[in-house]
């Protein structure tokens, strides 16, 4: 019962979203599907980078590992999806450990750069190392899908996104969430509070990789294809980063808001501005928002809520 009380906004959100297919066209639904996947990617980034301050510029690396693992297993070996997807998640978590190793020694800009190098490494090697397996530059296509049609795909993507969102949100509200954000503020001070920061970081990396793995594998099977271009790319990284940051890093709800906001911004602009112009406007809006609201849209909602729903305690009372 307590849990239901905590989750009332989430449940309201789920209710609203589950009624959505009754009102909108399959075309618009596909936009929502993309927004759901973007939200998952952004949350994966958020639980690692938003919380602990270890900024990852290489999340596409993790997503790509998941996508390629399940793609290759289904394409070459015809394994069923209920085996390949979990395998992909596990592989991604192992890949996440690769990310974690440099984080034992370096942080800040240097850490971000290593992760960027991981992504670039993947971009190059997927094209040339064993192109028979990876499909080389063109990638693999004609992959099996989990469900077909806009409505089932919408429900699937929303359900998974929702489950991940609630799970992570509950997680960051525990004392573990506090410990992870303390690492962002002062890792040495966390250590001298008697906490094993290595273990805490490893946990954040594993959770992040797991979410990236689930989302990456499902996304690949939603698209039915995968290629190095489009995945291991700075532009993809940009979309994930901006969704998480504009929504509000470290909050889990923020990345969801950010993902929806950005996806819809792009769609809203479609009738008015053709082609690449949209991305220009979109980028400028992202830049301006990041510059003036660095804590993200979620912080604006919080501020409004504090002003109208929760009067500050009287400073006189003690």
């Amino acid at each position, binding site marked *: 019962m307590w849990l239901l009380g905590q989750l009332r906004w989430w449940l309201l959100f789920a209710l609203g979203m589950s009624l959505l297919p009754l009102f909108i066209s399959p075309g618009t639904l596909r936009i929502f599907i993309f927004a759901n996947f973007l939200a998952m990617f952004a949350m994966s980034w958020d639980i690692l980078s938003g919380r602990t301050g270890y900024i990852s510029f290489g999340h596409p690396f993790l997503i790509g590992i998941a996508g390629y693992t399940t793609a290759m297993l289904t394409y070459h070996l015809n394994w069923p999806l209920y085996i390949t997807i979990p395998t992909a998640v596990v592989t991604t978590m192992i890949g996440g450990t690769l990310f974690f190793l440099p984080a034992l020694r370096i942080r800040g800009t240097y850490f971000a750069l290593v992760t960027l190098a991981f992504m670039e490494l993947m971009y190059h090697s997927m094209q040339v190392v064993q192109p028979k397996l990876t499909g080389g530059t063109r990638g693999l296509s004609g992959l099996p899908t989990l469900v077909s049609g806009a409505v089932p795909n919408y429900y699937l993507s929303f359900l998974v996104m929702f489950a991940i969102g609630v799970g992570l949100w509950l997680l960051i509200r525990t004392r573990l969430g506090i410990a992870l954000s303390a690492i962002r503020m*002062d890792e040495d001070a966390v250590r001298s509070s008697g906490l094993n920061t290595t273990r805490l970081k490893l946990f954040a990396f594993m959770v992040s990789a797991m979410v990236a793995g689930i989302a990456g594998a499902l996304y690949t099977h939603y698209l039915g294809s995968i290629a190095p271009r489009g995945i291991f790319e700075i532009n993809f990284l940009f979309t994930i980063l901006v969704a998480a940051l504009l929504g509000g890093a470290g909050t889990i709800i923020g990345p969801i808001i950010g993902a929806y906001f950005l996806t819809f911004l792009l769609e809203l602009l479609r009738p008015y501005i053709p082609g690449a112009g949209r991305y220009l406007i979109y980028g400028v809006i992202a830049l301006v928002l990041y510059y003036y609201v660095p804590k993200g849209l979620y912080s604006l909602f919080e501020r409004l809520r504090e002003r109208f729903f929760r009067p500050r305690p009287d400073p006189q009372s003690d």
Partner: protein
Amino acid sequence: MTDLLEVRDLTRTFGGLRAVNGLSFHVGEGETVGLIGPNGAGKTTVFNLIMNELRPDSGEIFFKGEAISRYPTHERVKLGIARTYQVPRPFAEMTVGENIRVGMLPDNLWKMVTEEAEEALETEIGRSVGFNNHQIAQRPSELAMGDLRRLELARTLAVQPSLLLLDEVFAGLTLGEIDQISELLVERKKHGLTYVMVSHDLRSMAPLVDRVIAISFGEIITEGTFNEVVNNKTVQEAYLGQ
């Protein structure tokens, strides 16, 4: 008196500079020790070495009879050593209460998730260093220097240490704030807390320590009661920089 902490032949160099040079001393259970010396004598380095925030070039550290030289920082804290920093380092985006909560966290992921925070105990620790309820809900940016030092102390006490390393706890404080913190330390000492204190404010330190160790260029010049040490000729010369 049994030794709580023993430091044996500790050495650490930075480039060509021997910041700590073959330093040996011990601290008994329930004892309070002052560590004094001119700027750059190596006092903070000693703390960093004891906490493993720096690695010594050579030497051994024993705590409760156990050789801890190979232990990482957090293991040393769990054994019962805690420190404050010369410049307070609160978690900037957390309230005072949440800062104390981090100090109280068990080093166990499962427990962190499943067990609730003990808010009553947090408040109690906060109040024990002199915060009121309003301040406990405030953020570090809203606090004065004296409050930040108290927060540092509260967070350190939250790990329930048996040995506390206090680095310049009086720096930048008003006389009133110094009195408050001194009272708190006297109170804690009565309850059996052991601490080593580094301070330039010798007058404030005097009533709080049983024994004083004076170091210069990483070596011990002399040790003894407060009066013995401050009246020692070598110590005075070291302070005058000769």
